[in-house]
């Protein structure tokens, strides 16, 4: 069966520090991979998605970037965090050409 791993579960970072959140998927090949952000009490905002290694689509211009160095690995990064980067970050996958997204357990990021 397919599983998605996202870590860490919580993270507290100072303003101006770098960020690296990692997500991996097991049990499937060539998945579509996604990063969403959820501000407190708000909906899910699509940040990035990838349909293959090295292929990244950015939905919202911002202080973040994404990379897909391996088929089942998706990384969210920032060189210098801003206060406004605080939020709940969710990684998700779907099968290639699929529709349903399966979400990880999320990372609660607090930038202080």
């Amino acid at each position, binding site marked *: 069966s397919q599983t998605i791993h*996202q870590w860490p579960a919580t993270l507290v970072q100072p303003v101006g520090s770098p960020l690296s959140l990692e997500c991996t998927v097991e049990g499937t090949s060539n998945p*579509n991979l*996604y990063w*969403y952000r959820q501000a407190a009490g*708000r*909906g*899910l*905002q*699509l940040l990035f*998605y990838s*349909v293959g290694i090295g292929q990244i*689509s950015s*939905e919202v211009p911002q202080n973040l970037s994404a990379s897909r160095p391996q088929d089942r690995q998706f990384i969210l990064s920032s060189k210098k965090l801003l206060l406004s980067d605080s939020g709940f970050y*969710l990684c*998700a996958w779907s099968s290639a050409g699929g*529709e*349903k*997204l*399966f*979400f*990880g*357990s*999320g990372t*609660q990021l607090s930038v202080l």
Partner: protein
Amino acid sequence: GESVGLHLPTLSVQEGDNSIINCAYSNSASDYFIWYKQESGKGPQFIIDIRSNMDKRQGQRVTVLLNKTVKHLSLQIAATQPGDSAVYFCADRFGAALIFGKGTTLSVSS
């Protein structure tokens, strides 16, 4: 991009009642819709989906209704239980991604 929204941010019901959560979408070309349930501090979980060539689909205790004429989607939960308390999101497909609405918080009291 696509805009998907819900009519009410909160809904409170008594245990055993039926719940109806509504959603409106703006893209008339959307061909796929989906509902998720999110409990506090967790990732969203799939509930049910529907394609645009259908107007109704049923699952276990849940039914999704799609009205393409008025671009409206609803989730009906039968015999609501305390464990149904969560935030519910609708989403529609936009290219390779899902675009989510803001969510409705369902509170079930015993």
